[in-house]
C-alpha cells in the first residue's frame, strides 16, 4: 500500500493511493477520493511523539560507481551524516537556490523509514525493522562545502533542500530494496541512472551498523546515498527523482526571494 500525507480542504490528512487517486483516511472524509492535483503533498511521515525528534541519517559515497569514478577505495565503514526535519519538504514543492551560487545539485536516494525500535539488530533481521520506503532528493549546494564535519550542515540541512515522497510504500510491497532502479530527470532529460544493487553498504548492513550504537525509532529515516550523475539545477528546472516501485518525486527549483 502507498501512504501519503496531504493538506486539503483546510486540514491535514493521511491518505492512501487508490486507482490513481488519493483516498482519505480522515474519519470525517473517510473513503472520499481526491485528485493528485487537488492537494498539497507533505512528507509522507507521521509526526514524531513528544521528546523524540526524528533522526535523519544520510550516507555519502555509498554507490560503487562513485567510488570508481573518484578512484576511491571503497570505504570500510559507512560515511554517515545527520540532517534534521527542518530541511524536509513534500512532493511537488519548491526548493530554493540561493542567489550567487555556482553549483547546486540533486541526489536521488532510497529513503528507509524505520518501523520498529531497532537496537543491535543483526543484518539478517534488519528488514523486519523497516516500515517502508520513500524517495528523497538530498540537494547539496557545493559552494558551501567545507572540510569540517564534511558534508557540513550549511550544505546538507538547508530549508526546502530535502524533498521527500510522494509515497511511503509499505515494506511488504518492496520485497528486495536492493533490486530497484533509480533515475533522475531534469526538465524531462535523464541525467542520473543507477541501481540499488550497487550500494556499497546495503540497507540491512546500514541498519546493523547504526543500531549497533544508536537506537533507531519508528519514523526515523536513513537516506542511503546517491549514484553517479548529478548536474547543476537552475531556477525553473523541474527535477524528478524516481525509484522503481517506490515513486517519482517532483520538485521545482526556485530563486531566492
Amino acid at each position, binding site marked *: 500500500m502507498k501512504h501519503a500525507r496531504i493538506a486539503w480542504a483546510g486540514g491535514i490528512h493521511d491518505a492512501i493511493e487508490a486507482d490513481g487517486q488519493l483516498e482519505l483516511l480522515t474519519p470525517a472524509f473517510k473513503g472520499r477520493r481526491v485528485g493528485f492535483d487537488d492537494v498539497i503533498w507533505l512528507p509522507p511521515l507521521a509526526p514524531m511523539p513528544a521528546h523524540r525528534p526524528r533522526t535523519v541519517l544520510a550516507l555519502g559515497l555509498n554507490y560503487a560507481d562513485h567510488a570508481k*569514478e573518484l578512484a576511491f577505495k571503497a570505504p570500510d565503514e559507512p*560515511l554517515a551524516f545527520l540532517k*534534521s526535519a527542518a530541511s524536509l519538504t513534500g512532493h511537488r514543492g519548491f526548493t530554493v537556490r540561493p542567489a550567487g551560487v555556482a553549483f547546486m545539485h540533486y541526489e536521488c536516494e532510497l529513503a528507509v523509514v524505520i518501523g520498529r525500535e531497532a537496537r543491535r539488530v543483526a543484518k539478517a533481521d534488519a528488514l523486519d525493522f523497516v516500515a517502508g520506503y520513500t524517495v528523497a532528493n538530498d540537494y547539496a549546494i557545493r559552494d558551501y562545502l567545507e572540510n569540517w564535519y564534511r558534508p557540513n550542515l550549511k550544505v546538507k540541512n538547508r530549508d526546502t533542500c530535502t524533498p521527500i515522497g510522494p509515497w511511503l510504500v509499505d515494506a511488504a510491497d518492496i520485497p528486495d530494496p536492493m533490486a530497484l532502479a533509480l533515475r533522475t530527470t531534469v526538465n524531462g532529460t535523464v541525467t542520473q541512472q543507477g541501481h540499488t544493487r550497487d550500494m556499497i553498504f546495503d540497507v540491512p548492513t546500514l541498519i546493523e551498523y547504526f543500531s549497533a550504537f544508536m537506537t533507531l525509532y519508528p519514523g526515523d529515516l536513513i537516506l542511503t546515498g546517491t549514484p553517479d550523475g548529478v548536474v547543476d539545477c537552475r531556477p525553473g528546472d523541474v527535477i524528478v527523482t524516481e525509484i522503481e516501485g517506490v515513486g517519482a518525486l517532483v520538485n521545482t527549483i526556485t530563486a531566492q526571494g
Partner: protein
Amino acid sequence: MTAPPPFQPDGTVYGTLLNFRCEAALWADRAAEPPYKGAPRAPVLYIKTANTFTAAGAAIPLPARAPEVEVGASVGLVFGNFKDFWPLPSVDRSLFAMNSGLTDTLAGVAGLVLLNDLSLPHTSYYRPPVKFRNPDGFLGVGPRVVPLAAVGDLAALTLTVRINGELRQTVPLSTLVRDAATLLADVRDFQTLLPGDILMLGTDCLDDGTRPRAQVGDRIEISAPGFQPLVNTIVREVSADGPPLGAKQGAAESGSLFGPSNPAQAGLEPRASAPLGGSEDTAVPSVGVP
C-alpha cells in the same frame, strides 16, 4: 508534593564545534593544512539525535570498549515561545512573564538549558562525528529551561564542571568565538530553528586542547548561576547479551513522559574516521557530495 519531571527536548538539538577561542586558537595552524585547508567559515554544526537524550539525574551508559568519555559542558538556546512551555511542569512558571520584550537578536529563544554533550574522543574533525557523538544516552539534558531574561547577560555566565565533586573546568561564555546572537544569525542564514529545537553554543577545551574525561562510576555535575545543576553518572553499558530491548536503566526512567528509555548500546572502537581519500576537491563534479 513530588518534584516535576526533568525537562526533555522536543526538537532537534544542534551542537557547535570550535566556538571557544581557546580551542579555535589551538586549531589555527592545523586548520590551514589538509584535509581542512582553511579555518571554518560557517558555524560547524552537528546534531545530537533523540537516542542521545538523557534526563537530568539519569545514568549514561559508556560503550563496552570505550575506556572513557569526553565531557562537553554547554548551554543551549531553546526555541519556541515561552508560553509553549507553560504547561510543562519542568518550567518555572513564576518566570513566565520575564521573556516579554526581548531584543530581536535572540528572537524566538524561549530560554536556556544546561547540557552535558558527551563524545567519544576523536582527533579528526574532518568527517561527521556520528559514531562519536551519537551513542545512546550521550546528551545529558538540564532539568529546567530558564528564561533568557532571568539569566541577563549571557556573556557574563560561567559554567563549571565537577567530576566526583572535584572542579575540573570552568567555561566562561565571554570567550565564545561567535556569541549567541551571532551564532544564531549565522545558522538562520541557511536553516530555520523550529519550536522545540535547541542550539548549543559550544563546548570548551582545557588549556592543553583536551576535555575533561569521565569513566564508569563517575558523577558529572554541570552548573551555572541561576540554573539547577545537571548531574549524570556514567555506568558500564549493559552487555550485548544483557537485558532485552526496552529494559529500564538509570535513575530517572519512571516517567512515561520521557518516552522509551535510552538503553545501553553495543560498543564501538573510539577510532578516527577512516580516511576516504583526499581527491574530492578535484573530483569531476557529477557525483554527490561526500
